[in-house]
């Protein structure tokens, strides 16, 4: 992982600050850093979002494609996650250097979205066992400034919100199905993201835990708890990560604050997304030009 190396003194400075609920950049333990979010900036995707969380930059593009449902779930569509760590973020990612991290993020995203309550995947199935929508969710990590998992999940949710599925009518007679794709670019369907989760990473630093750890803070952290939390406070996936250990009581503490912060994050995110949507078709996208 894209770690940075800190001296012992620096680490102590950070740990002590956190014990006093005062982090190196002035935040309290439950504060997120400044986020910058924009959706719909890659026009040849079905949905896209760019998230900048301090120095972490994530770009998500979603392409929807028509495919056959998996035999074990013949009546649902599905999500396929793919994460690529660009060498732009750090030369270490060059070639296959970023693959481990990418797989880790990818797996946890898939976990978080594996619960059936998260998305109405059944609505994505057009003809059972024959035809369903598959969402290819491609996450591109462009810059590492810490808290990659949270950032990725927020960008994914935003991109899902932005995703427009072309309206397809199926005329079915006897064996064959016929597909009529609406030629009207405005004739699209959206997917309900109100129950999709955001990942909240709680990093144990000293005796306290913080959210949205910066790269420096991550260097001081020995163990962290990552949980996928929905707007209702449901946890759809959870994993403990890192070489250190956690005692059961602090796990429970961390879960409590994770749920609380997660609910709030989900709420605010959706609010912002809707606000952006209000601006309508004529909204100019800025993208990386800013």
């Amino acid at each position, binding site marked *: 992982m894209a770690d940075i190396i800190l001296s012992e003194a620096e680490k102590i400075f950070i740990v002590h600050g956190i014990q006093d609920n005062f982090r190196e950049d002035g935040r309290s333990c439950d504060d997120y850093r400044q986020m910058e979010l924009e959706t719909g900036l890659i*026009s040849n995707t079905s949905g896209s979002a760019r998230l900048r969380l301090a120095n972490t930059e994530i770009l998500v593009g979603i392409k929807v494609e028509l495919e056959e449902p998996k035999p074990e779930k013949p009546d649902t569509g599905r999500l396929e996650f793919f994460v690529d760590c660009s060498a732009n973020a750090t030369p270490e990612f060059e070639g296959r250097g970023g693959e481990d991290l990418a797989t880790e993020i990818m797996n946890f995203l898939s976990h978080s979205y594996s619960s059936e309550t998260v998305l109405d995947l059944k609505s994505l199935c057009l003809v059972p066992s024959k035809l369903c929508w598959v969402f290819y969710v491609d996450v591109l990590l462009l810059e590492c400034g810490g808290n990659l998992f949270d950032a990725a999940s927020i960008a994914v949710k935003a991109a899902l919100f932005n995703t427009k599925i072309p309206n397809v009518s199926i005329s079915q007679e006897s064996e*064959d199905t016929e597909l009529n*794709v609406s*030629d*009207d670019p405005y004739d699209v369907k959206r997917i309900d993201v109100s129950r999709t989760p955001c990942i909240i990473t709680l990093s144990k630093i000293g005796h306290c835990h913080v959210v949205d750890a910066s790269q420096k803070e991550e260097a001081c952290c020995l163990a962290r708890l990552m949980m996928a939390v929905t707007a209702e406070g449901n946890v759809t996936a959870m994993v403990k990560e890192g070489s250190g250990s956690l005692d059961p009581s602090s796990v429970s503490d961390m879960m409590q604050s994770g749920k609380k912060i997660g609910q709030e994050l989900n709420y605010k995110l959706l609010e912002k997304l809707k606000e952006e949507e209000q601006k309508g078709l004529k909204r100019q996208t800025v993208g990386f030009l800013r």
Partner: protein
Amino acid sequence: MLTSKIFVKKTKRGGVMKVVREHYLRDDITCGSKLCCICEHTTSKQPLEESPFSRSSLCPRAHYLLPDTNVVLHQIDVIEDPVVTNVIILQTVLDEVRHRSIPAYKRLKDMLANPDKHFYTFCNEFNKNTYIEREPGESVNNRNDRAIRQAANWYSQHIKSVNIVLITDDNENRSKATKMGLEAYTVHEYIKSLKDAGSLLDRLANPLSRITIQGGKVLFPEHLPLSEIQRGIRSGKYLQGTFFASRENYLEANISVENRDSMVFIQGMINLNRSVDGDIVAIEMLPEEKWSCPSSLVLVDREEQQTEEDDIDDSEREVKNLVPKELRQPTGRVIGIIKRNWRQYCGVLQPSLLKESTRHLFVPAEKKIAKIRIETRQAEGLSNKRIIVAIDSWPRTSRYPLGHFVRELGMDLQKRIDLRHLDICSVDPPGCTDIDDALHCRRLENGNFEVGVHIADVSHFIRPNTALDKEAASRGTTVYLCDQRIDMVPELLSSNLCSLRSNVERFAFSVIWEMSENAKILNTKYMKSIIFSRASLTYAEAQMMIDDTSRQDTVTVSLRHLNRLAKILKKQRIQNGALCLASTEVRFYVDSETHDPIDVQVKELRETNSMVEEFMLLANISVAEKIKSEFPNSSCLRRHPAPPPSNFEPLIKAAASKNLKLDASSGKALSDSLDKAIFPENPFFNTMLRIMTTRCMMQAVYFCSGMLPEEEYQHYGLATPIYTHFTSPIRRYSDIIVHRLLAVCIGADASYPELLDKHRTQVLCNNLNYRHKMAQYAGRASVNLHTQLFFKTRVQDENGYVLFVKKNALQVLIPKYGLEGTLFLNTPDKGVGSIFKYNEEENTQSAGEVVFRVFDPLTVQLSIDRSNVQHLKLSVRLVHPYIPGFSVPPAREGQTTEGTEPPSKKKKV
């Protein structure tokens, strides 16, 4: 200049792929009017006139026309009329026309390029003031209509002194335009309002509303909508197929259904349901008890045109369902049209009883096409003329399809050089109808000679990628058999339109040299031309004309010059090392009734054969150089590789047995030593040597110039560094390609991508080589067959020569028939072992005193061996020298094979 605003067009394609295209809007797109002083016009781009003359009573003020897509598509014949000028063609319209009809698009482009028409293309989709984006819920068509109105509106604001008249037949579009304050009419309203429109109304395509008889009786069942057809086809309820009208009976047709072996039969007007030959239709099978079969009646639609009630009385003509079960064929009826395959048809007007009538029936030249009802006021002028008519529609209430008059037919001379004044003639074998080439020669004022080789302009008729072209490319060559020929191109072209027959005008592709007295080429010109051949001669006739010193007509003089020049050319060629090879060609004289060969002769070679050949070679070489210089990578050339020295070994060995030394180290050396190898006592010896030399050669092949290094281009036999085939486009496809290449070189024709693609050309060459070889095999097989037929009833003794000595046989050449036979030396049926001894070293076979060497003369008896009924073969038996126990007695005069039945009458060959 560049408004750098990006608009994104999204298209869904093949399901769900999102396509995003950049679209730039500009502020530098001009209106194209001479009146305008707002736009920054670049000169020459203002075709719209300052004061367009108005003939219209509807809109007497000066105006520009702005037609919508459907008007352009359907009324292109009217728009083409010189009366229609000052028209704005929107980019939206141009694009839509291009997508919907390539022929209409091409015609529209021609009009746009014609300065007299004053047509202007306004790129409204790129203009920032006229571009509009599709709105939610808006269909593409509605969006385009809106774009047209938007552009019309912009023009009206932009140019005040001239009206903008929107022409559209779409009611909604028209009413919306009127609401915006635009002037809009239907085509009919506008054309009708024109003063002296005259014949223009004739050419208006028939909209359904105009001709249908009011309250007309519905004659045909409805066509099902396409969506229903598609569903039906998927479910197997309906079948999709191509409609083939019967040639004999206009009430019958067959449908070729994919994946079905037999055709589906359709009978009766109602069941045919307005299908036209070539349409893709949907059919429904009839229940088996209603199946029918072709009536074997020849029925021509004689319906008089004046029967206004347009009734279909199928009952009268249709064979009632009395067809016996065993004759019944799968029968169906047409329930809908999937794709019309209408085109323009050529034909004549049916003579009308009423002189003043404007409604006429048009009778297409093709019998399979139904008569077409058209309206014209110029019927009188058009009678006895071939005209072109297009079908517009076929409503349920009309017995005939409705169409409109397009134009009269005539010859079009384009940019051809007129060479009709030249005394051109052709020289070919007797009976030749596909005349590829013709020649002329005349003395110029400066004392030099002008020599012309004129080749049939086949590429004018066979356009790239047409069905004709594809078929010709696949056939590759015409196949010549003893008494018939399998054409590469249809007979109408090969024996008539392309063939450079005498006393008719023909299109040609000419190569014209200026030559000095001693046949030195001073300059070469290539041109598409029109010629008028004075005579189609045979080699013998031409020879007689040359030899008859009393004749001094221009054609004869021309031939004499050609003959003299040809001799010089030939001499030069041979000096360069070209080989004169021999292969005897025979000609069968076939009984016209029984098709049995009655006589065989070796084809005679005259000076005139060589004369024509020389100029063809010269033309081929000149053209090869020309196309190679312009298209070094994609020329279609012909090469003849030098054979490896080992190929010559049998030849050298055979010559050595006669104490002759042949030098095969180069073409020149070989040619020289062959010339010296003459034995006065055996005049046929030299010919035999040359026949044997031919067998040492490699195959000459076509190839694409970009695929080989230049040193491999050489043609060994002709001793030229480059060669191609240009002179026989009627019978060889390679020549058509060469014609196209040459035409592009001289700017006479356009190129097309495949022509310049070296891989495609090489693939084509490979096929041509294969076809060429197969055609040769077929030709030889045909000669063999005829030889056998000839000897079927004969037993004949003939003189021959030993061509090869083999281990168990002698290969014998019989000069009289140009025939080669195998004389087997062991006759196993006699139960005796071979009495011959084979000496491998000296290459001899001996039996007692008698020794056979190569080139030795002998007499053999020819007959047909019938021991194997499947494989009748020519049996060769020795007569002289006499070898006891082996030779057979000489044949008696008129001897026939034992037990021969009289020649069967209907022998198919």
